[in-house]
């Protein structure tokens, strides 16, 4: 594995008698999108705050782009683009003025600053409203600007703290597409959310966090594999369903195959990769497949299995 852009080791934080973060460790490589998935109060924002040097920690270590970070670190923070959950923009300033202000704090100046401000305004599709006060913006426009500020100084690591909370579906979709594009451009992204669908859609790897601890970590497939649940495939078909079901039951990684009332129900491992073989065997056995439905176990089930509670509790 290449040197990670972000490396957290054994992060710990207490607030009085309450342990907010308890030994959190993970890393994020360049071009990788890592999701911290957990319910409200799980410790996601506290973890992010320590990573960005906004909050002192009681233990552990954070290294970003090869440099350790703590409260009071200055130069090392330049590698981070932070997008807080709140709309951290000034309503009395225009979009351009907001970008200029935070750009100057990121040590950009002169032509470099102006060029970069223009690029980011293009990226977040606010060029035409650049000089309007943000108090006149819609919620989605403010969200886009909120993200744009984090990208202004071309960080190595983009930290997004629940960026879609309170966002309408259209804007949410646009934000998720933008984040996916950024990940594909080589940016290391740390993305916190309590929306399972976002984690599944965006993240290369996911850390499931609850009560300040990472309960499990891995790709979506690895996490689902942890709980032993299998994919379910339903073939709506005609023809010889019984023989087809028997033929499919003998295929490797197919654990069950039953024919019922115009359907063949299968329990398989890794249905997506096995699907061509299943269709081939079914056709060879005389079944005429009209449609296919694949149901994979989701992270909600994983979270329930690991913590004994639902993700949105």
């Amino acid at each position, binding site marked *: 594995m290449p040197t990670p852009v972000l490396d957290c080791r054994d992060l710990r934080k207490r607030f009085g008698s309450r342990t907010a973060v308890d030994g959190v460790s993970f890393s994020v490589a360049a071009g990788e999108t890592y999701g911290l998935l957990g319910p409200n109060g799980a410790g996601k924002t*506290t973890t992010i705050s320590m990573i960005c040097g*906004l909050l002192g920690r009681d233990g552990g270590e954070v290294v970003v782009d090869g440099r350790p970070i703590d409260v009071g670190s200055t130069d090392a923070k*330049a590698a981070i683009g932070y997008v*807080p959950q709140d709309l951290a923009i*000034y309503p009395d300033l225009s979009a351009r003025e907001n970008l200029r202000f935070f750009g100057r704090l*990121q*040590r950009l100046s002169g032509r470099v600053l102006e060029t970069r401000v223009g690029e980011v305004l293009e990226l977040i599709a606010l060029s035409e409203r650049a000089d309007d006060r943000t108090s006149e913006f819609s919620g989605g426009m403010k969200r886009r600007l909120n993200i744009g500020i984090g990208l202004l100084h071309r960080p190595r690591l983009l930290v997004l703290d629940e960026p879609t909370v309170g966002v309408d579906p259209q804007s949410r979709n646009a934000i998720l597409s933008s984040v996916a594009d950024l990940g594909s451009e080589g940016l290391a992204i740390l993305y916190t959310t309590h929306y399972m669908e976002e984690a599944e859609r965006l993240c290369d790897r996911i850390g499931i966090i609850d009560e300040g601890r990472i309960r499990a970590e891995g790709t979506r497939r690895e996490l689902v594999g942890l709980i032993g649940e299998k994919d379910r495939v339903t073939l709506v078909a005609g023809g010889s369903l019984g023989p087809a079901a028997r033929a499919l039951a003998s295929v490797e990684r197919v654990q069950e195959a039953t024919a019922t009332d115009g359907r063949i129900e299968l329990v398989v491992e890794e249905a997506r990769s096995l699907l061509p073989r299943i269709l081939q065997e079914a056709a060879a056995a005389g079944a005429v497949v009209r449609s296919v439905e694949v149901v994979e176990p989701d992270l909600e089930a994983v979270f329930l299995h690991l913590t004994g509670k639902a993700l949105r509790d």
Partner: protein
Amino acid sequence: MAATVHAVLTIALRDLRQRVRDRSAIILAVVAPFALAYLFSVMLPGGSAAFHTSYAVVDLDGGPVARSLVNGPLAALKEAGVADVTAMADEAEARAKVEDGAMAAAIVIPAGFSDAVGAGRAAELKVIGGADATLAAGVARSVLKGFASGVESVQVSIATVLVSSGAAPDPALIARLSGEALAVPDPIILADDRTADRVASNMTFYAASMAVLFVFFAAQFGVTSLLAERRAGTLARMLAAPISPQTVLAGKVLVSIVLGVVSMGIVALGTSLLIGARWGDPVAVAALIVTTVLAASGIALLVVGFAKNEDQAGGLTAIVAMTLAVLGGSFFPMSQAPEGLAQLSLFTPHAWFLRGVNDLASGAGVEAVVSSLAVLTAIGLGSGGLGLLRARSVVLAR
């Protein structure tokens, strides 16, 4: 270092721009102190302004002792600019002038006054006081009591000389000698130059007192925004940039200092040009303003350190500012305050600033305000140091 200075200035300029757009800040920092200074100085005479009144004098006696009263203590009042003294022919005219308010009080010297003094009999002087001028009548009575005391001393002295020389007491002679003796200047002159008497004019006093009262409200705008930005999330975003918490604090404190200096500077300049306040040596006044703003900013920072949000900080600042203003003599001159309150006032920046302005308005130079400058700087550094420690926890609190 250059990057830090650049960040401090960036933060300060953004806040200042916001304040310029915010009319409430301009009203609190400039308009209110200016307007109140003018209103107080017009509506509340007295205070540090010179006392001035008018007396009618009716000399029905015309004798030597009466003349010594008119030409002595009463003429001295006129010379000192304390009172206008107008001679009148009869008591009825004088009483009418007092009753219609044209004169604050009338002093009536009855016929036979000098003879009564010469004969050692009780001699009466009458003061007719106006209903709304008790202070003027009181001053007149005090002057006459002093004169009566002098007359008594002279009577005793002359009688002693005549008795010891065996001469018969002649009332006319005694009256003449009394008049001459009372006309002789006092052999001992009491030079009273207490610092408390070095007071600014009414206009200057209220200009200075309102300036120092409202500078606390002006200075709070900078540091209180820390709490507002923490709530809005922009503070966290700033701290995620490659700057330290101290840089953010420095930017906010700089805003407080700039707003405070601008507020007091405009009030000082405006009241000088428009309503006749006389602040004194500009360099010394500038030094007083800067050190007072330092003290106000330090105290405002300390208040912010104990507040949970900007509303609470605003309320606490108002309480602290008004309490210090009352204790420090922003609403009445400390020269008129009880001794205990005057001592207590020395714990406030207001008292030291106003003391400095009093000295400068009386013509003193910067050397006269060194103690004020030193105390104000100490208050600023002390409260500011504690405030920085508290405010750092505000910056880092999540």
